């Protein structure tokens, strides 16, 4: 039977090769982000974030955000994969922060604290960063890492709750009037509802900047459609590649709130 259909099967060989070559980055990503993760979870009994924390603890200098970020980058590119913002897109973020010089910053999706450190070290004196994380265990690790980098409670405040619960209470519980800068890197599906929540609570003022990561891959199509349509923002997409991977295109959306004219 094999011999019988061999030639037709051979005709599909070019297709197979094409698919493999063209989507090699996706295959690599699948291997690194999912297969290795499952394997390591089974072997070590720790979560991915805990492993990352162990690595950072052993390889970075405490109190030095720079070295912690470097350790993270190294672990993510050499050992396993965690979707942090990464060094390339991180540079864009740094630049935006330096230009904006915000005093109140909201970060949605702390994860391991990589982006929190990145934002916190670029903040001017007296600025305050509120970081929202839904997952309890991740938040514990993020807390440790942030303290390890030397940022105290006055600079970074970690809020452990889902974002859609936190945002309506920001004004009452934390006394916030206006957010200068919002960084979104949590669930891609929450981008749009959270943005609408922010608008609805009146936390955005003219000139507030919102930066959303991973709008192309994995992608937030509804979010993009919304900002295109609503006309409240001046926006552009910084095109880059996915963090710790060369061939997958991704983008970071930069929105500046203009308000209703």
């Amino acid at each position, binding site marked *: 039977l094999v011999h019988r*259909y061999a030639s*037709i099967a*051979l*005709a*599909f060989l070019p297709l197979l090769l094409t698919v493999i070559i063209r*989507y090699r980055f996706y295959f690599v990503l699948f291997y690194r982000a999912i297969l290795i993760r499952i394997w390591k979870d089974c072997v070590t009994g720790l979560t991915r974030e805990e492993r990352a924390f162990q690595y950072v603890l052993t390889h970075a200098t405490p109190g030095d955000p720079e070295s912690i970020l470097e350790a993270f980058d190294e672990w993510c590119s050499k050992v396993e994969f965690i979707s942090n913002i990464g060094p390339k897109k991180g540079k864009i973020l740094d630049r935006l922060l330096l230009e904006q010089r915000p005093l109140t910053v909201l970060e949605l999706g702390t994860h391991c604290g990589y982006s929190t450190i990145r934002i916190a070290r670029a903040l001017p004196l007296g600025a305050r960063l509120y970081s929202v994380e839904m997952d309890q265990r991740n938040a514990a690790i993020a807390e440790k890492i942030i303290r390890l980098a030397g940022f105290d409670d006055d600079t970074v405040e970690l809020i452990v709750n889902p974002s859609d619960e936190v945002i309506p209470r920001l004004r009452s519980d934390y006394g916030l009037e206006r957010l200068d800068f919002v960084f979104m890197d949590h669930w891609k599906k929450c981008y749009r509802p959270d943005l609408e929540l922010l608008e609805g609570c009146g936390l955005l003022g003219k000139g507030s900047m919102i930066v959303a990561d991973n709008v192309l*891959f*994995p992608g937030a199509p509804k979010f993009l459609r919304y900002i295109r349509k609503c006309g409240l923002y001046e926006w552009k997409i910084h095109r880059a590649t996915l963090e710790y991977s060369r061939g997958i295109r991704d983008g970071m959306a930069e929105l500046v709130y203009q308000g209703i004219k």
Partner: protein
Amino acid sequence: MSVSFTTGDEDEISTSEHERGKNRGKRNSNDKEKKKKGNGRRKASREREGEEDLQDRTEKREKGKKRRAKNDLDEKQPEEEDEEQVKVKNGKVAKSKKNLKNETTRKIEQEKKEEGDAEEGKSKKKKKKEEKDRGKQTEKEEEKKKKHKKETSEEDNEEEEEDEEEKEVRPESLSPEELEKLKEAVDEKKKLIQGLRGKPWPMKKKLVTLRESQEFVEKYEGALGKGKGRKLYAYKVMMTKKWMKFQRDFENFKTACIPWEMKIKEIESHFGSSVASYFIFLRWMYGINMILFGLTFGLVMVPEALMGRPYGSIPRKTVPRAEEGSAMDFAVLWDFGGYAQYSVLFYGYYNNQRSIGWLKFRMPLSYFLVGVGTVAYSYMVVIRTMARNANESGVGDDNSFNFSWKMFTSWDYLIGNPETADNKFASITTSFKEAILEEQESRKDDNIHLTRFLRVLANFLVLCCLAGSGYLIYFVVRRSQKFALDGLENHTWWERNEVNMVMSLLGMFCPMLFDVISALENYHPRVALQWQLGRIFALFLGNLYTFIIALMDEINLKREEEKVVKFNITMWEASLYNGTVSENSTASPITIHPADIPRGPCWETMVGQEFVRLIISDTMTTYITLLIGDFLRAVLVRFLNYCWCWDLEAGFPSYSEFDVSGNVLGLIFNQGMIWMGAFYAPCLPALNVLRLHVSMYLQCWAVMCCNVPQERVFKASGSNNFYMAMLLVILFLSTLPAIYTIVSIPPSFDCGPFSGKSRMFDVIQETLESDFPAWFSKVFIMVLFYIQTKIQIAFIQLAIYYLQSTSKSYKEANVELKKKLQTVTLSELHVVWILLLTFEINLCFEIRALVF
């Protein structure tokens, strides 16, 4: 002295041309004073002039005339430029072009008349030099009247009274000046309507202005004429309007008559001209195939079906006993065996009877001539189209002014879809980026060895792929021969259709692989596209020729078989006769049903069948890929996107793009197969017409419904002839095997119109000998000998024809360039140059910002 004269003259013109129209009201009040002044000046100049001799004066007058004409021209120029712009914009819309032409011609006529009037007026002025102010005024009015070509007479003018308060549109009650004013205004509005297209206004304003001015003109135009003349004038105006409307309708009707024009235009507006060029090519191909189909259908298939012997009369027209059971199976539809094989659709069915029916139709001769004629017609059409295209497409050097070309010519004005426009915009920006990067690259060429190595590697990989696919096809064809010897019934459908399947699959998947491999080479996209086209071409050609070579093997096998069968038949007949002869001649002759008579394998029908199957499977694969690869994918992407963890539309897999090059090549090779197989299967053109018709609708639908505009939108200008050149090459390569089989292999002994002859072209000799008087054949053969050498020359002549037309277009381009050089003045050059510089600098800055 002459200077003062000219200034006076020009003053007059300027007042009459500009001020008159603009500040009418102001002028009315101090009209007379101004005129006095002007007249005084003129008088002075005239007096001084009078001192000179007559000859000199006339000379001067001529000069003045020229100047006037020049002034007129100068005024006209911007308008003409506007019109030219419009022309460029709507380059393809013949309708508007024509209208514009009409307008220009009308204008020119008007101008001429004006000139003539002015001259006349001047001569009159000279005569009435000594007259008073009042006289002057009337004279001037006359002049103006003439200028506007009205049928009003001078007497009427003089009799009219002044009444400034009157605002009604009653020409009898209007003063000459009022009338004049009205005419001026109407003229102004007309001018506005004509030049509206070129105005840099928003569309809304344009529309409003157009409507207003049209209403104004309609309202007052009729009022200007008077009495008898007025009616005639109104009638004339009405007729011209009707005529224009008729012309417009006629143009619309003509466009509506072109098949699929609206569909293609719609696609063009969505996807740019490159995708549309594929559909235009498809339509053109459809036209050619219609003619081929008409020839074969009208001169071969229909006569045979109507006048030839009916089905079942002779063995070649009957399904053999062994196949009768399966002759009506459903599989006949794609295998073309059974009853389809023994019908007018294939070569074997035709009888070698010299003439059929009451028309004495020479069937074999017709068959042969139609076979030759289709090919000859195809050659003619392809070469003529190429020549015409070469004429049309202006000859330009694309490489030397790279940035200027990009700057001024990269926009595709036929795009009407915002998304495509966005893509086009992005592609222009990227092309600028690329061009800048290229400049940088060309300055620093490091790592050239790596690039070279990668390019060689890529070519090596492609060659491996080509060889592999060639070998696979050869292997499969050989295996299918083995199956055929075993008997097809013992094998599955997959095995029976293995050859076609494998060929179609390879033709589909290998180009994708090439595309991936070409990423290694790091070529400029345009160059990469050419390489890609070349590789696909090589692949298709290799596959086709492997197929043909394998087919040749099969033909030889069949001919061996034929020899055996022939021997057996003689034995069989002998045994049959032996049985009858013993009973002597009184016995009734044995009647054997034609289905039982043994017969040869008939390789021609086999070849035809192979080609038909190839076409069918090719069509099927195309449609199935379209449905799966485009439609299903689009449906999945669209509806799974609501519940998927990443953005399917923007990221992977996204919607598919329309692959112009692959589709064009597919079409061309399909046509090549038709040309190759049409001689042995007269049904092929008909099948192809059907296929093209279906593909037109199916692909139009698929493009509009499930493809997205290409990321790299490029213009199709100039690519048309590239397609044509490929078609010509394929035509040549596909006629070679057909000619080879016709010339070198003797036809089967018991099937087809040429059975019993040693070669197929003997039919011509036979016709010459028996259907024409003896002298004619002698003359014909002499002429043939005489021409023999010239046949080769004919080919050269075709080539020369092509080259000639190309050179003609070069020449025209040269002349045009020269003209342009002459007309472009220095100041204009300056303006253009400065514009270009500022544009380029601005863009460069922006692009720098984008790149870095």
